[in-house]
């Protein structure tokens, strides 16, 4: 067990975003969190990464309670995340962006007088991460001028540059064309192997991606866990398919069942 949530509750006034969510993530798992809009997926990620404090419940990372300890300390313990909406430093070049993560991982942030650009450890590692994510040719571009997909990729790359043990990705492929989605996922999986990331947790809407990459799927609905299991099991769960995947998928599945019966 590397990350676990125990009975998490989060309310926004009357609205209950999380109503008692518990699960355990093991080493080596690729977990996808799915659910319709407003199911509490992003709230869950925000609670797990300490941006929000739960009203009730606890989060553990490697047997250590981390509930609400905040993103900065979490990143040092080995838990990183990327964001659903583009979250960048607009006036930075790609390389500078990645250097922020590397400087903080190497504990060099308090070097007040040493030259950043002459620090070959930092610049070298930043270039390596850029290469890993196919951003090396754009390394000197300002991040605000990058195309949308690259911005997203950079956000993810910066989280990887922290060399975390567990990474939480909030819709890494949203806003990206379908043809690019698989390419991004391949990059993510190979990069995580190279860096030595133990577990990946992602929120994802694209069911093709979810079913082809995940070891395990957690389905959320109205702040509660509807189902938790291997993709093969989830696929056969009619309730999940209908609430989470929507009517289109629902119709497809039912028609296939009808076909079988006929």
């Amino acid at each position, binding site marked *: 067990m590397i990350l676990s949530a125990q009975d998490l509750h989060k309310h926004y006034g009357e609205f209950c975003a999380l109503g008692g969510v518990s699960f355990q993530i093991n080493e080596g798992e690729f977990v996808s969190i799915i659910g319709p809009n407003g199911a509490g997926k992003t709230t869950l990620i925000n609670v797990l*990464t300490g*941006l929000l404090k739960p009203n009730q419940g606890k989060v553990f990372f490697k047997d250590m309670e981390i509930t609400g300890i*905040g*993103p*900065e300390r979490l*990143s*040092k313990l080995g838990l*990183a*995340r990327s*964001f659903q909406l583009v*979250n*960048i*430093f*607009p*006036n*930075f070049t790609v390389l*500078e962006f990645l*250097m*922020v*993560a590397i*400087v*903080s*991982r190497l504990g*060099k*942030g*308090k*070097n*007040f*007088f*040493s*030259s*950043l*650009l002459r*620090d070959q450890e*930092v610049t070298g590692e930043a270039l390596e991460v850029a290469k890993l994510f196919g951003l090396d040719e754009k390394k000197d571009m300002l991040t605000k001028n990058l195309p949308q997909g690259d911005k997203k990729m950079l*956000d993810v790359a*910066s*989280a990887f540059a*922290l060399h975390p043990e567990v990474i939480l990705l909030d819709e890494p492929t949203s806003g990206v064309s379908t043809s690019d989605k698989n390419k991004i996922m391949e990059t993510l999986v190979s990069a995580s192997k190279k860096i030595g990331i133990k577990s990946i947790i992602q929120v994802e809407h694209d069911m093709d991606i979810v079913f082809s990459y995940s070891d395990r799927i957690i389905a959320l609905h109205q702040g509660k866990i509807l189902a938790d299991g291997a993709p093969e099991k989830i696929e056969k769960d009619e309730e999940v398919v209908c609430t989470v995947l929507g009517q289109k998928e629902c119709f497809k599945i039912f028609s296939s069942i009808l076909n079988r019966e006929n």
Partner: protein
Amino acid sequence: MRIPWEVTSLKSFRIVVLVVVSLFLLGLPLFTGQFISYLMLTFFAYAITVVGFNLLFGYTGLLSFGHALFMAVGAYTAAFLTSKFSVLYMEVILIVSVIVASILAALIGAICVRYIKIYFAMLTLAFGMLFYTFLLKFYYLTGGDEGMRVLRPYLLGFNFSEVPKMQFLTGSYYLYTFVILAILIFIMWKIISSPFGLCLKAIRDNPEKAEYLGVSVRKYRWYAFVISGAYAAVGGALLAPAIGQVDPGLTYWTHSGTLVFMTLLGGFENFFGPLIGGIVYIFLQDKIMSLTTYWRFIFGGILAFIVIAAPGGIAGVISSLAKRRKS
């Protein structure tokens, strides 16, 4: 790594410009009148202050509206040491100013950096005004609104009491202040180009993301606050002998506003922007004040014009003109 030709030539061009400007400023008292050199001297003191101020404003994204407080700390330290304790060594004055201002900045900063934007600006303004009231009301200690006299300091242990005042100020004291300015600009340049500087810029651009990348936002803001406070104290301590008399107006909020104005006028996005703003401000103020008593009215107009038409300040206009010429 191979450095492209354009980069090296740009770098050497910059060094040549820096050397030429430095030599010009060093030799200025030789070929201008004492008054111009005197204005230049006050500019040096303000330059140190705004370079420090811009670490907080331009690089960390925190607008302090009470930064003159630390300038006053430096100036009053100089006054106390010279006229109450008979300590005349300028080096001692500078070191004590930095220590006092750093301690004060550490305490005030610890409270202020918990807030951002307008809340940070208002809190710093409040602290500045608190210090103003302190200086005004504890008159048996500070001389109240009369202020305190600053005696002529020794520079590097040399006593200049025989030299006429203006000759001292535009001679040895001018050179002394210029050298300290040059050293402090160099140190600030190192800070800006260090990993620490990168983290500050990250905080300015997007604190939430910086926090997720392991940058402890509040701590780094606090460091920046203390460093900029110490810079302002050096500026204030060097200004004090030049004006000869310190008074509570040094920490009044309009004086903090002057620092903000200089930085905006020159351009806070450029390292040298605040310096350009400082020099233009000081000479413009002198010119306009001699023409009309409504100089604040004209300065208000200029400020409005900058914010609307040229938010990058003078440095921003220059660099966009340079870019246009290139392309």
